[in-house]
């Protein structure tokens, strides 16, 4: 029997290898040893400070990579700093031209990049060739466009400066593009630290930068492990750090950069739900699962690793999944007919094995197809785990491997509850043929990206990023650009003076022998005035040194109560119509204006200047009007992603937000925090200025007469040192605004790591609250919202 006549009977696929010849040639040309790329030139390789990068499919070393030292990082940061002025001076069109050249270069050398990526990472060539590399080119094209349009689209903003970028090993080139493209477009220069397992394509990209004529120092690549990354994070010459990787490392970076003034965006882990309703096209769902969890061997931060399926179709879906798993093909990632390649490194393979064993010991039923994974190299078969409860390890921990758990639900609300039963919030996928159902569930799921009847779709025009402990900031789309710009006014803004210590004022004297009626206010929690738990109060001293009154001195338990009250009503407040929230803001303005004279006199007592006090109250009324206006006008976008779908970028409230108000403008600062947050659907815990909190307490009656539902606004007066740490620590507070001094800002950032809450601090910069750019508007609205991208493919 000839070979052909044998295959004629078996109808097997046979091997279909992609040639590695050109990639090998490139490696050989470099003698398989690489240095860093600093200031437009490659440094020497150095065997003494090197490690090997290996091919996960064989375990064989491919090349020697240099371990970056603090000196290397310093050299790269200096090069980036030196290049920065020139890069910015090129202007929008000049930068666009360079980025366009990079995009073209990526396309021209697409296959070499794809093959090298697969050799270094272990992902199937089909993915690197058809998904990763085309998306890289697309990212540069798209952002060449943003470079061109920056002046029109982001007026009043300039670059941040030198950006340190640390990327993971799961999508080495794609993450490089996600980081570098927007940074360059907005006029920044970068120092990139690729993951130690997968540095090769970043080095090839460095060569492309030279070939494309990118000015030296605009892009620098320093290779190395976590120590190199730490040196980059710690470098004082870096203005911003962007990181994609695990939540644990994200936490370390947040802590390390706290108080440094460095901006930070983090794209971290996930445990994304994949929700299947009983009317879904189950055959398509099965392919969706393949794309969700067996794409890139499940080493995807947004992998749909928790299948939540409606009980009635659970058995059928499980049967279909098992059948499909039998036909997945695992093997040499350079084979064009392979669905799954190798796990990036032995350490990752061991982690997957350990977690699955842990799940098994907890009672999970672990199912794998009948075929066995290749023995050579680092492979792990596709795995389906059932009999897993939400409390199980496999349901909670990010495995970062081809392992999916399957759990069932009964109703849409139970599906939402299970979907949100995680610390993460990166992505979600919802499958149903009922548009009413999908569009009802999508906003309720806590995730930065929601894919309806699809999964793991990415595009440069759509922002990607997380809620909760999946991080903050977006990559892609207009929403992603804000991570790489700084408002022009900030550049020259002076530091705010450090808050003065509390003063002991003189007691107010009795008038004609009769003491004034004591008005010691309480705290404002859940719509009621509540006595402070500790039952202490603080004097509020006016400009003339006379005690104007006392305010409650809130403590830890008051914070707890306020956050609970805010949490309880947040979903309901966020779900109200924007028109309704606007009406309440206008009503607040109306009731404040009725008491204009009273507030003016209070501000004057505190600050002394009668005329200025009058203006501050006027401005506060106007500010409430402004956010009443914005409430139904801060709209999302429909992104032009290259699929037949609408990609809805919706601003959603952050949730429960704590805001520590500035001392500078007692009433206006307070209103400037309160109004944008509640206009966008957040509920708030406000800590008024320590020395001027009495104004906020005057505001209780305004709130009470303006139909503000109880719990939407909570106010705790007291000492910031006592209140702010508790709020910044609190794991049920989703965001924290802090308009105090630098020391306080550092503390807020440091403490935010418990739940990776989003923080907004200005590191003590003086903000002119009367200025409509600095004190009101777009920046506040952006900080009061997070963008959720909902992908809705259509077509019957």
């Amino acid at each position: 029997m000839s070979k052909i006549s044998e295959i004629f009977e078996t109808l097997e696929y046979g091997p279909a290898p992609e040639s590695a010849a050109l990639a090998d040639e490139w490696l050989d040309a470099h003698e398989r040893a690489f240095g860093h790329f600093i200031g437009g030139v490659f440094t020497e390789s150095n065997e003494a400070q090197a490690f090997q990068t290996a091919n996960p499919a064989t375990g064989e070393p491919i090349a020697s990579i240099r371990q970056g030292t603090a000196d290397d990082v310093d050299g790269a940061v200096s090069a980036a700093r030196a290049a920065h002025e020139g890069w910015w001076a090129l202007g929008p069109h000049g930068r666009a031209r360079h980025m366009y050249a990079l995009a073209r270069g990526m396309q021209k050398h697409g296959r070499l990049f794809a093959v090298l990526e697969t050799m270094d990472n272990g992902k199937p060539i089909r993915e690197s060739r058809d998904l990763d590399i085309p998306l890289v080119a697309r990212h540069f094209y798209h952002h060449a466009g943003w470079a061109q349009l920056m002046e029109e689209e982001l007026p009043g903003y300039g670059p941040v400066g030198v950006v340190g970028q640390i990327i993971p090993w799961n999508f080495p080139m794609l993450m490089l593009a996600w980081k570098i493209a927007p940074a360059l477009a907005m006029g920044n220069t970068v120092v990139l630290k690729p993951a130690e397992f997968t540095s090769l394509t970043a080095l090839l990209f460095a060569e492309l930068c030279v070939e494309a004529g990118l000015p030296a120092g605009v892009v620098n690549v320093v290779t190395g492990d976590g120590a190199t990354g730490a040196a980059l994070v710690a470098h004082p010459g870096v203005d911003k750090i962007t990181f994609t990787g695990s939540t644990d490392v994200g936490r370390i970076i947040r802590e390390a950069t706290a108080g440094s003034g460095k901006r930070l965006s983090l794209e971290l882990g996930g445990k994304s739900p994949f929700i299947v309703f009983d009317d879904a096209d189950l055959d398509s769902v099965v392919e969706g699962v393949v794309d969700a969890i067996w794409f890139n061997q499940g080493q995807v931060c947004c992998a749909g690793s928790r299948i939540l399926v409606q009980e009635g179709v659970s058995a059928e879906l499980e049967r279909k999944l098992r059948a499909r798993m039998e036909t997945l093909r695992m093997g040499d990632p350079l084979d064009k007919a392979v669905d799954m390649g190798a796990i990036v490194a032995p350490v990752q393979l061991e982690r997957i094995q350990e977690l699955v064993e842990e799940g098994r010991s907890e009672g999970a039923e672990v199912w794998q197809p009948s075929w066995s994974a290749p023995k050579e190299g680092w492979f792990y078969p596709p795995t389906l785990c059932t009999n897993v409860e939400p409390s199980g390890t496999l349901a909670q921990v990010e495995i970062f491997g081809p392992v999916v758990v399957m759990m069932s639900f009964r109703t849409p609300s139970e599906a939402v509850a299970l979907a949100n039963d995680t610390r993460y919030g990166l992505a979600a996928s919802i499958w149903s043929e009922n548009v009413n159902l999908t569009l009802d569930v999508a906003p309720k799921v806590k995730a930065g990206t929601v894919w309806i009847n699809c999964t793991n779709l990415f595009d440069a025009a759509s922002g990607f990023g997380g809620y909760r402990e999946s991080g903050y900031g977006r990559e892609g789309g207009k929403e992603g650009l804000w991570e790489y710009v700084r408002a022009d006014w900030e550049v020259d803004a002076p530091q705010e003076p450090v808050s003065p210590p509390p003063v002991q004022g003189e007691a107010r004297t009795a008038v004609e022998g009769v003491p004034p009626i004591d008005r010691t206010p309480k705290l404002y929690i859940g719509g009621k005035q509540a006595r402070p738990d500790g039952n202490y109060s603080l004097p509020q001293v006016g400009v003339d040194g006379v005690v104007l009154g006392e305010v409650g001195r809130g403590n830890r338990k008051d914070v707890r109560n306020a956050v609970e009250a805010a949490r309880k009503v947040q979903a309901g407040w966020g779900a109200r119509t924007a028109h309704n929230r606007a009406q309440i803001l206008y009503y607040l303005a109306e009731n404040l204006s009725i008491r204009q004279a009273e507030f003016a006199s209070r501000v004057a007592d505190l600050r002394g200047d009668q005329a200025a006090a009058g203006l501050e109250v006027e401005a506060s009324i106007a500010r409430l009007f402004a956010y009443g206006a914005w409430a139904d006008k801060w709209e999302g976008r429909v992104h032009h992603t290259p699929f037949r779908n609408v990609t809805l970028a919706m601003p959603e409230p952050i949730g429960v937000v704590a805001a520590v108000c500035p001392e500078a403008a007692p009433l206006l600062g307070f209103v400037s925090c309160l109004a944008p947050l509640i206009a966008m659907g957040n509920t708030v815990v406000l800590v008024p200025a320590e020395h001027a909190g009495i104004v906020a307490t005057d505001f209780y009656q305004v709130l009470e007469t303006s139909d503000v539902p109880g719990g939407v606004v909570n106010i705790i007066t007291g000492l910031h040192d006592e209140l702010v740490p508790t709020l910044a620590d609190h794991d049920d507070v989703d965001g924290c605004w802090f308009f105090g001094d630098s020391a306080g800002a550092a503390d807020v950032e440091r403490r935010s790591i418990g739940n990776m809450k989003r923080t907004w601090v200005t590191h003590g910069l003086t903000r002119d609250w009367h200025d409509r750019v600095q004190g009101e508007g777009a920046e506040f609205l952006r900080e009061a919202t997070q963008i959720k991208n909902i992908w809705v493919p259509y077509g019957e």
Partner: protein
Amino acid sequence: MTTLDPPVRKRSGMPTKTNGPSPVDLREGDRNPGIPLDLEWVRRIGVNRSAVERRAAALGARRSVKKEWQAAWLLKSITLMDLTTLAGDDTPARVRRLCAKARQPLRRDLLEALGMSPGQIRVGAVCVYHQMVDTAVRALDGSGIPVAAVSTGFPHGLSPLSTRLAEIRASVDAGAEEIDIVITRGNALNGDWNALYDEIAAFREACGAAHLKTILATGELGTLRNVARASLVCMMAGADFVKTSTGKEGVNATLPVGLTMTRAVRAYAERTGYAVGFKPAGGIRMAKEALLWLILMKEELGTAWMQPELFRFGVSSMLGDVERQLEHHVTGRYSATHRHPMA
């Protein structure tokens, strides 16, 4: 390192003999008798077009068949062809020429070079209009190649029911072993599944021992959901094959349509244990497309459905390209049309 080829899936209730090259047994033994119309199932079936299109687009990107494997698959594709002529100017001589090609679709020297014996490669059937059935039956006498007749007012299907039934009987009487009927599209478009079911059941009865292939004319059904529902109803009514197109609609066999129909076939087989065949037809001209359709079959239904009992291509010109590709495999040089005998 080796690439693993996963084993063929075993389905409960599936006739295992479909795995082997034994067409006669299957025709006699495991023919789909149909089931009562299950309207709840028909209405419940959901097809998400965007997801189906993504999967269809990924099929060719996820799989690749090269070298000897490609040659073997192309040889296989010849045995799956319903070599077709459905033109107004068909004459007996034209049909005889087609039948001669059907008997010997590939040059003998190529067969030998590929290590195949001459008896191994013949086409699945010859497909003609009723008037040509007799000619074709004679021309194919002794070859074992069945004659398929398009029927029931092909391609529109709008002649009186009695005429359409008579047409089937006439073709069966003339020796056609396979009848390719067209459905009344209006029934599917209006959701009149009862009417569609009754019509197909009547056709099936008229066919007797001849096999019934139901052409959905998917290009005129508007949506993939309709395609899935119509496929299911035809199978319930006793179809032996579901077929995409007449070749006369504006849009013929597309991969998303094929994916939808094969999934309906799978659902039916899983539910009833009966294996129904699938025939894409219209516009398939290139060897590359043949490979793509075979990949679709292997992925969605397994190798059992890559046999002539359960899969056919309705083609008129694809054979020529397959011949050229096979010669290229043998010689290493690109071939030319005139080097292969015409059909």
